[in-house]
C-alpha cells in the first residue's frame, strides 16, 4: 500500500524552498463560518490546517481552546457534523484533525480513520495517545492512508525521541513548553531546546507548537525548527467574533514574519 504523504509533502515544499512551514489550528464547528475561515487561513499562507474536533475533556488544552471547544459543542457540533461540513470542500492545503483518543475509540478505529479519509483529511493528532498505546490506531490510520503526527515533549528522554521520530508521519510535533495550549508572554527556552534535540535525530520536518502566540515567537522558534503550529492565538481571534478575512489577516502576519525574518 502506498503511503499517504500529503502533509509531509506540503511542508517539504515550503521548507525546501528555504522557507518556514506554518500550520494553523482552528476549532471545527466554531461559528457558522468556520469553513470560510479555514479557506481564508489557507489563502493567508498556512501550509497545513489542523481542525480541532472538540472533546469534553481536553486535558492538553488551556482556557482559550477549552472555551472554543465548549462553544462548538454547545452549538451542536459533533465529529460527524464537522467531518460532513468538510466533505464537499477542496481546500488548497492538506488538513489534519486534532482531537482526543476517545472520539476515535468510540467510533471504532477503522471507521474513524476511514471517515477522516472520506472527509478529505490527511492526518491526525491525538495528544493523549502515547507510543505505548499507539498500535491499534496507527494500523487503522495506515489502512486509510492517514498520517499520524506524534508529539515529543521537553520531558521526553533521548531514546524515546528516536522512537517517536521513527513512528511519527507527516511531521514531528515538538511541544514547546511544559504546559497546555495557550499564549505566553515569551517563548520558553524549552521550545528551541526540544526543536534542536529533534533536528539532531530526524530528517522529518520538526514543527514547534504550544506557546507560539505571536509572529515574533514564531520567528524565534524557527531559528531552530522547520516551522511552527499556531493555535490559541488564532482561536482567540475566532472567539472574538472576527470574520474569516480578519482571521486570515492575522495568519498573514505570521506568514510575513516567517518569510521576511527566517
Amino acid at each position, binding site marked *: 500500500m502506498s503511503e499517504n504523504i500529503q502533509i509531509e509533502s506540503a511542508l517539504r515544499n515550503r521548507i525546501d524552498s528555504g522557507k518556514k512551514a506554518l500550520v494553523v489550528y482552528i476549532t471545527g464547528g466554531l461559528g457558522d463560518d468556520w469553513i470560510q475561515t479555514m479557506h481564508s487561513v489557507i489563502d493567508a499562507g498556512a501550509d497545513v490546517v489542523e481542525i480541532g474536533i472538540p472533546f469534553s475533556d481536553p486535558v492538553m488544552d488551556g482556557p482559550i481552546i477549552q472555551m472554543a471547544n*465548549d462553544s462548538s459543542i454547545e452549538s451542536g457540533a459533533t465529529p460527524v457534523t464537522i467531518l460532513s461540513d468538510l466533505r464537499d470542500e477542496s481546500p488548497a492545503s492538506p488538513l489534519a484533525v486534532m482531537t482526543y483518543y*476517545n*472520539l*476515535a*475509540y468510540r467510533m471504532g478505529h477503522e471507521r474513524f480513520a476511514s471517515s477522516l479519509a472520506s472527509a478529505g483529511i490527511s492526518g491526525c493528532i491525538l495528544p*493523549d495517545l502515547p507510543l*505505548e*498505546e499507539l498500535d491499534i490506531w496507527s494500523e487503522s490510520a495506515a489502512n486509510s492512508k492517514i498520517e499520524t503526527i506524534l508529539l515529543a515533549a521537553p520531558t521526553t528522554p533521548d531514546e524515546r525521541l528516536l522512537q517517536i521520530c521513527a513512528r511519527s508521519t507527516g511531521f514531528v510535533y515538538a511541544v514547546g513548553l511544559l504546559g*497546555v495550549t495557550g499564549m505566553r508572554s515569551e517563548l520558553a527556552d524549552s521550545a528551541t531546546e526540544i526543536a534542536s534535540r529533534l533536528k539532531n535525530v530526524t530528517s522529518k520536518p520538526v514543527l514547534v507548537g504550544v506557546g507560539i502566540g505571536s509572529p515574533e515567537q514564531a520567528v524565534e522558534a524557527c531559528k531552530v525548527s522547520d516551522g511552527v503550529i499556531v493555535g490559541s492565538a488564532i482561536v482567540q481571534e475566532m472567539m472574538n467574533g472576527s470574520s474569516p478575512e480578519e482571521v486570515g489577516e492575522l495568519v498573514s502576519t505570521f506568514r510575513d514574519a516567517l518569510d521576511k525574518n527566517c
Partner: protein
Amino acid sequence: MSLKNPNEKGRFGPFGGRYIPETLVPACHELEESFVEAWADDSFREELDSLLFDYAGRPSPVTECLNLSDELNCRLLLKREDLNHTGSHKINNVLGQALLAKRMGKKRLVAETGAGQHGVATATAAALLNLECCVYMGEVDVKRQELNVFRMKLLGAEVRSVESGSRTLKDAVNDAMRDWVATVEESYYCLGSVMGPHPYPWMVRTFHEVIGTEARMQCEEILGTTPDVVCACVGGGSNAIGIFSGFVDSDAELIGVEPAGGAAIGRGVPGVVHGMESFLMQDEFGQVLEAESISAGLDYPGVGPEHSYLSSTGRARYESVTDDEVIEAFQLLSRTEGLIPALEPAHALAWISRERKYLTGKTVLLNLSGRGDKDVGQMMEILNV
C-alpha cells in the same frame, strides 16, 4: 495477596493502560519505578505503617450493628474507615503517596477532590510532611462542601475552584492534570482513587489493601468465617477495591454500589478518559457525560479500570441506588446505630436496605468509608430543617 497485579502495560484484562500527553509519560515511568522500589523497601513500609497506626489511628475496628441487623434481618458489620484521621479511608492512600513524593524529591502535591475528603487528606499529609499543596475542586463542590474547603485552607493548602465543564470531580481531574503537565518537574500528582494512568490504579489499590487485610482478620475473629456479602460504594472505586482485596479469594459476594446518576459500569460503555480505558458514561460520539449525584465524592462518570475488569469477569457485581434511597439510608444508620455516615457509604447501605429480602439471614460487611460531618449541612437543606 489475592487481587492480580496489572500486566506490564498497566492493564487488568483489557482495562487500564496509560493514555496521557507525552509530557507526562516519563513522569509515570518514574513514578512506577519509584513505587515498586519503595514498596520493596522495608524502611518505607515501616515508615508508612507507623504513620497509619500512630498518626491516622489504624487499625480501624469492625463494628457489629445489633439494632440495624434486627431491623434488616441480616447480620450487618461495618468496617469503620470513618474513624480514621480526617474522617475517611482516603488517608491510607494519601500517606503512602505523600511519603513516596517525598522520597522522589518532589516539593509540591497536586490533587483533585470531589467531596473534599481526598483534598483534606492530601492537605493533611502535606502539612505533616512539609510539602506544598494545591487542590482542584469543582465550583459546585466548593459550594456544597464548604466546610472541607475551609479545612484544607486551615491546613495550609491552596484550593482552586474549577469553573469548566461539569464543575465537579471530572473537571477537577482535568485541571489537576493540566497543572501536572505544567509543573511535572517539581510536582507530584496525588490522585485520589484507583483511576488514572498506570501505575495509579494499582498503586492506590495497594495502599488501600490494608482495609481488606484488617477486615479479613477481624471477620474471622467475629464470625469465625468470611461474610456472605462484602459491599462498598464506588466513585473511582478505592474504598471498594481496598475492602474487596481481603475477600476476593473467599466465597463472599462482592458488591459495588454506584449512584444512579454516576453509574459508569451500570450505564456506561468502555471508553478512554483521564488516562485509562474503563467503563465510562458517554454519548454516542464519545463526549463524556456529566454525572449527577447527591454525593460529591461519587459524582464521577468513570470508574477505576480494575472494577471494569472485576465486573467483566463476574467476580464483583455493580448495582446502583437513587439519591432518595441514599437520603433514607443516611438517616437510617444515624437513627439506629448512632453513626452518621458520609453520603458515599450511605449508597452501600441504601443497597443493603433495599435488598433486605435477598440478604435475609446473611452476614454482610459494609465498608463505612467515611463519616458524615461534611454532609450534615447539605442534609439539613435537603430535609428542610
